[in-house]
């Protein structure tokens, strides 16, 4: 018992470790998290897959064995005890019971009436009438003991069910050496036979991901650092995967429409829809909806050359890698998942305008707000669907990668529309977004025209001339200063063209004394803004388009363009891939399980509940009425609280020994 309890404690502690230490992750992640030293200790003792470690299973096996032994030892005696009425109990032993009463005389009790009373009270009894002694032995609630047997047998049954579904046979075959997990990332068809499991495997739980339209006839069972390929007795075709959303943007339903095909002739055996909580069972194998994603969608981009100003079309497929040459250097483009819907929580509406002031008013306001919002069960979150997005990495020859996140739909903010171009150089960082301003037709062309003009030094004299013309149009300055102004404007454009606002800042820092920098920066910015207006005119003229009227919106657009142009110096890519269109192909992840132990487990569970119920809610009681040797004796035994037995005994005595004065 003591040993069993310590083993149970070990199981509990191991289980706790298993919950704290995330199980079944990639081994490389563990290596990074714990370092080589601890990895070298944790891995052999199986801490990364505690619940399937051999020592864990061995302890469980031992506990199961000891429970079985316990049942084996106690069951026969218990069953005998349960069935027995103890109708041979002697007078002395009955008189030793805590609850008994004896009176003189053998005719004080009406034997028939006593039996009727006990029947009403729910007892069953046996009468032993021999040697002048009439003994009625009654009992009820004997199933309480049965409860003990049931509950313990249930544990064993559940363990057996678990073993049936466990991967013990596979582990044994691994130990023997005729099966080995595949660790290489190779096409499924190339996996050698020693890492494949046949359709005869009685129990497995594996995963497979299928793009729409694809057919699969295997699942993958992950095992430590590698995997096994499990052949299915049928093939699975994903016809369509569908996600429905609530109005809040939360997913409401994931559903895969599938065909189950005969492996040999490809005929449809069964068709159906698999949803979360609604598996489809075929041939004893249950098919579950377990994940979903992008199955490789066709993507179309406009590639804007950020250096030379060219523009070209680019076609790609999500979740794939392709080579590209930029500025004469080779790069690889690694596309991630296409995400068609991106619902973002933009915070509470109006949450930005908490009145400023001393903190106490803010605090009071916050409490008031919280109380007010606590009244309503309806969510007031400001959700916005940002539309489709694509994430990709651009990797240079040296293997350095920068990650990008581009949205397809225009983003509305402050009365203008933009394209969002996200970039991050560190995978753990947040994306920084460049807002590419869009023209009145929601196109980026106008911005790109302006950008090209502003970055081409050949245009600077012309832009500077126009800017100076406007500045001196009202004749406020002398013409000698005009040349200075023009050359300063050119210099500013030059600096900006070398590295945006940062470069201008550096320029000012190197040329201007500290106390005048702020004023000079102000002036430079003003000049740059004015020059931008003229640059736009030049750009329009070059494209043979009419100049933009100087409305507030257009001015806003130009200022945004300036910010975006400056932002692209931090972009880290010689190309901006404007996401134009896509044709979505979804994929659906299935889990397929064959688990013959499941009915056994549930049988064991029912047994367990019945057992526990009987143990705690049935009360065993035994009553003896003995008439002989000139006395009438009533005894009661039971395993309830003494106080409760007192009441029961008093009731029995009143009913069975009515005429006798109290006392023993």
């Amino acid at each position: 018992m003591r040993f069993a309890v310590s083993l149970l404690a070990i199981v509990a502690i191991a289980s706790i470790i298993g919950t704290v230490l995330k199980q079944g992750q990639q081994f490389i992640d563990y290596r990074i998290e714990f370092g080589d030293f601890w990895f070298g200790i944790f891995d052999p003792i199986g801490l990364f897959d505690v619940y399937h470690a051999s020592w864990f299973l061995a302890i469980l096996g031992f506990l199961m064995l000891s429970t079985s032994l316990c049942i084996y030892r106690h069951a026969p005696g218990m069953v005998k005890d349960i069935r027995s009425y103890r109708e041979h109990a002697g007078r002395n032993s009955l008189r030793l019971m805590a609850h008994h009463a004896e009176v003189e005389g053998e005719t004080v009790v009406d034997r028939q009436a006593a039996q009727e009373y006990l029947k009403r009270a729910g007892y069953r009894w046996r009468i032993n009438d021999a040697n002048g002694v009439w003994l009625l032995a009654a009992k009820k609630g004997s199933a309480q003991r049965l409860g003990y047997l049931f509950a313990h047998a249930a544990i064993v049954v559940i363990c057996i069910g678990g073993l049936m579904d466990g991967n013990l046979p596979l582990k044994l075959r691994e130990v023997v050496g005729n099966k080995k997990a595949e660790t290489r990332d190779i096409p499924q068809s190339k996996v050698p036979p020693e890492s494949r499991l046949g359709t005869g495997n009685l129990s497995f739980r594996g995963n497979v991901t299928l793009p729409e339209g694809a057919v699969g006839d295997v699942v993958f069972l992950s095992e430590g650092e590698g995997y096994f390929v499990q052949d299915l007795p049928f093939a699975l075709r994903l016809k369509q995967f569908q996600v429905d959303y609530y109005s809040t943007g939360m997913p409401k339903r994931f559903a895969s429409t599938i065909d189950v095909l005969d492996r040999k002739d490809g005929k449809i055996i069964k068709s159906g829809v698999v949803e979360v909580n609604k598996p489809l069972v075929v041939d004893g194998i249950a098919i579950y909806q377990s994940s979903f994603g992008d199955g490789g969608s066709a993507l179309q981009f406009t590639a804007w050359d950020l250096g030379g100003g060219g523009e070209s079309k680019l076609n790609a497929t999500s979740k794939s890698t392709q080579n590209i040459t930029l500025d004469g250097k080779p790069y690889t483009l690694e596309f991630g998942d296409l995400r068609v819907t991106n619902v973002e929580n933009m915070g509470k509406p109006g949450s930005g305008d908490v009145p400023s002031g001393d903190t106490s008013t803010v605090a009071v306001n916050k409490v008031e707000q919280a109380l007010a919002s606590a009244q309503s069960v309806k969510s007031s979150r400001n959700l916005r669907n940002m539309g489709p997005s694509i994430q990709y990495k651009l990797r240079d020859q040296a293997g350095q990668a920068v990650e990008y996140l581009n949205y397809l739909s225009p983003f509305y903010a402050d009365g203008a529309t933009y394209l969002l171009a996200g970039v991050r150089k560190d995978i753990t960082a947040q994306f920084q977004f460049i807002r590419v301003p869009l023209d009145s037709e929601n196109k980026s062309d106008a911005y790109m025209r302006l950008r090209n003009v502003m970055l081409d030094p050949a245009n600077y004299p012309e832009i500077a001339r126009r800017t100076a013309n406007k500045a001196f149009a009202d004749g406020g300055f002398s013409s000698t200063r005009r040349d200075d102004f023009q050359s300063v404007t050119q210099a500013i454009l030059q600096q900006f063209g070398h590295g945006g606002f940062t470069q201008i800042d550096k320029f000012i820092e190197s040329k201007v004394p500290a106390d005048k920098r702020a004023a000079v920066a102000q002036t430079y910015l003003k000049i740059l803004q004015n020059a931008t207006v003229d640059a736009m005119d030049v750009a329009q003229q070059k494209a043979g388009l009419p100049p933009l009227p100087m409305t507030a919106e257009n001015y806003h657009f130009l200022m945004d363009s300036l910010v975006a142009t400056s932002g692209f110096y931090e972009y880290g890519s010689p190309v901006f891939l404007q996401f134009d269109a896509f044709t979505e192909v979804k994929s659906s992840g299935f889990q397929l399980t064959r688990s013959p132990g499941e009915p056994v487990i549930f049988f064991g569970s029912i047994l367990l509940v019945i057992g526990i119920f009987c143990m705690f809610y049935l009360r065993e009681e035994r009553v003896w009425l003995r008439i002989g040797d000139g006395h009438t004796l009533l005894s009661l035994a039971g395993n309830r609280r003494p106080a409760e037995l007192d009441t029961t005994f008093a009731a029995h005595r009143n009913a069975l020994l009515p005429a006798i004065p109290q006392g023993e």
Partner: protein
Amino acid sequence: MSTLSLNRRHPLDFVFAVLMVLAAGFAFSRYGAHMDYYEQGILAGVTTGLIWFGWFWPAMRWFLPAAGVLALIATAAYGNDLSRAQHAFLLKYLLASQSAVMWMCVLYVMSTITYWFGMLRRSETALGIASGMSWTAALAALTALLVRWYESYLIGADVGHIPVSNLYEVFILFCLITTLMYLYYEARFKARSMGAFVLLVISAAVGFILWYSLDRQAHEIQPLIPALQSWWMKIHVPANFIGYGAFSLAAMLGVAQLLVSRNVLATRLPTYETLGDVMYKAITVGFLFFTIATILGAAWAADAWGGYWSWDPKETWALIVWLNYAAWLHVRLVKGWRGNVLAWWAVVGLLVTTFAFIGVNMFLSGLHSYGGL
């Protein structure tokens, strides 16, 4: 011993039974067309269960109908318009689910204070009032849950669901169940001063509800994610909370028992034996329902996750809790242990249970992540 033979029934029992059958009949006549076989079965099962409950515990003969009537008044006051919660007087100040929850919170805190006052001053009157406040708070909790259920359908027909789907809702359920269990034992053992300790754990839950609602807006009704769209949820979660409630109750009685053993409050609390007895009874109830809940969870997991047991952190912790109380019952029944060890063990059991209940959601990730903070 309460047997269910008909000839010993109180006339009110039959009135109650007829009322329940009529209510079920009304529900069926009105919504029967929308019910599938499962739901018809559930309706029949719930009706039978409620009748049994009312017969088993007479106080339920008024408690359940009262909550039902309050909920019906609230639904009538709503008249299919959720925004009426903001201006209809009855809803705004009393019956909208959030108002009812706030009343529940206030009443629990007041009840806790009054229990302590009554216990320390040996005032039966105060204890009686405290008990009454707990009853009212429980009524508010049940009403709040029923009304919230209705409100979820007013937000959107596809949003509507039983309010046991997130941590906020189950905390209200926890308060309700723990209180009812306590009130049952209070009446059965005529030991009102136990309330001072039991209500402490409920007040702690109330504190959590307030923080969770005011700071995190957890009271907002969110639609169900696909994994939770299953009728298993309706039985798995409440069964679990009968377990959690019972274990918390037992732990607080364990605290009381330990104090009595050190002669603290010994003359004001029930006897050492009574406390131990109630603790044992609570744990047996809790253990049975926790077992059922875990099995229901496994059955649900078999439908939703593709396996009845995945060693998910929540599952594993449920197993640890189960083993803990299995061992507790073993040493009491088989080894005949009594006294302070079991009391300490029950208190530690609450820590384990609390971790399984909240800690797992806070610190560990896994398949149960929708119960997260």
